[in-house]
């Protein structure tokens, strides 16, 4: 209750003075009145005080209060001096607060289009000895253009971070890539999609191998803008002998191939038809049926019929896809939803 009361007192002050825009007019003189107002504001609404309110709110506050306090810090980050925010981030040891301060630095980067704000976040994501702190630093970047920022800054990217010994860090990598692809670019960005594929390839082997995370990434990432080289890499993953324990990963590769650009569809369809005959895993075969429908839309009707005798256990799936295709829906999301409505127990294609 006390925290909520403090927030209620501080909110009007920040709303009144916090979101002031910087240099929107090309030549705007800064008056002494504005300077003295800023000084008195700093006394009452210091970053330290705000962070303590946030810390208390995240610990004991209600869900809406937590959401409000998080958003408030990210909004204010645009007008705070970067050095002050960075120093607070570097001092912080609590993972919960590290995530919020990392998010504030990411918000500042997005508002000013300055990737340098992320330098300390990335350093910490690599170097901090506490895996929870490394993961929190990364989670703060969710929903920002982090792939582009990492490319501009050089040094580290998600293909290196996926090799972290901590599962929590690896999970943060996958969640960031999926959210960035879907929420920032709506699946249209080639660089993010190709980085996700490279990360999934990296997660398959080595001391920090995590096939389940690789499968999640490949199963959910958009591949609509990837280039021919990325498609070739995905196809090469299907060349290894089918390992029963990696059925989910192979199915995820198939789902990813189902979303490739039209210019790549002919060779992908050929390979998927071969795979349906060679791989007797039902998870993989179900994924192939969905991928073929996505790649061929109405043209998949005879293709599916030709595949029916190969595995009679999947006749219901083939019936459901054919029924969905006959509705004439022209968008994959609608078609997938219709198929799901007809046969709800089948795995949901992405």
């Amino acid at each position, binding site marked *: 209750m006390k925290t909520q009361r403090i927030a209620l007192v501080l909110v009007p002050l920040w709303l009144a003075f916090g979101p002031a825009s910087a240099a929107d007019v090309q030549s705007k003189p800064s008056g002494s009145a504005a300077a003295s107002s800023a000084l008195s504001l700093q006394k009452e609404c210091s970053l330290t005080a705000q962070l303590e309110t946030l810390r208390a709110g995240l610990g004991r506050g209600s869900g809406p209060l937590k959401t409000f306090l998080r958003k408030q810090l990210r909004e204010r980050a645009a007008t705070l001096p970067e050095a002050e925010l960075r120093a607070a981030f570097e001092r912080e040891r609590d993972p919960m607060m590290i995530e919020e301060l990392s998010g504030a630095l990411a918000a500042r980067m997005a508002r000013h289009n300055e990737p340098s704000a992320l330098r300390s976040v990335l350093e910490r994501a690599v170097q901090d000895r506490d895996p929870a702190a490394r993961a929190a630093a990364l989670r703060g970047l969710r929903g920002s253009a982090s792939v582009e920022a990492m490319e501009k800054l050089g040094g580290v990217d998600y293909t290196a971070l996926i090799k972290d010994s901590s599962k929590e860090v690896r999970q943060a990598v996958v969640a960031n890539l999926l959210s960035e692809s879907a929420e920032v670019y709506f699946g249209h960005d080639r660089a993010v999609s190709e980085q996700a594929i490279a990360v999934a390839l990296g997660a398959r082997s080595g001391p920090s191998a995590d096939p389940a995370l690789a499968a999640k990434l490949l199963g959910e990432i958009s591949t609509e803008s990837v280039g021919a080289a990325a498609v070739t890499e995905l196809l090469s993953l299907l060349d290894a002998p089918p390992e029963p324990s990696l059925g989910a990963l192979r199915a995820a590769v198939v789902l990813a191939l189902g979303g490739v650009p039209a210019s790549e569809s002919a060779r992908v369809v050929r390979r998927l038809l071969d795979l349906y005959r060679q791989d007797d895993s039902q998870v993989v075969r179900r994924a192939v049926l969905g991928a073929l429908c996505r790649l061929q839309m109405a043209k998949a009707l005879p293709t599916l019929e030709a595949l029916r005798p190969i595995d009679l256990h999947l006749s219901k799936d083939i019936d459901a896809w054919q029924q969905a295709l006959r509705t004439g829906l022209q968008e994959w999301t609608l078609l997938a939803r*219709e198929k799901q409505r007809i046969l709800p127990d089948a795995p949901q294609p992405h």
Partner: protein
Amino acid sequence: MKSRFLAKTLGLVAVCAAVCTALCAGESSGLAATANGPICDPNAKVNSTTYYGCSGGSHTALDIANGTCSVWNYRAMLVGSFRYTQYAGCADSCGSCTAGAGCCNGGAGNYFVVSGSNGWTFRQLHANSPKGTQTCDRCALGLIGSTGNSTGAHSHSDNLQYGTRKSAWYTTVGTTCGTSGNCSNRVGVPTL
């Protein structure tokens, strides 16, 4: 008697379900975003919505101006990080469009597009001095200008699905002529 009534009821339910499915199948959902005004000036006001000047010909978009040209930043309107793809090549302008070079890019002038899912887009038109394609949150895209088919410096923003302009994104939040177009004021909730 009872069984006939039951059969009729079931039949009616089946028809309703089929109609509902057919209607719902035509819809494509998208994400609801928040759009703030594009000018960080208290004088910025909405001056056209569904109709030019709110009483003229069809417009179905928001025009926002503050009476200046090439002075104020033209802010990206969506709250959150998004990719603003630039379509430029028009010379800066503060006046009216005349046939030829001034009526550039089909009338849109220098403009920016955020491409969402399922055919949804959000556009901001008529910028002067565009800064290029950026992925950012409410950053400066350029300056408020009058490039393209425009009769004075302003921001034109619209929300389209498969090329058709929609009005619900601003009508649902009550934005109309005279509403503040300041960058701290929410003017709409476009779908992406």
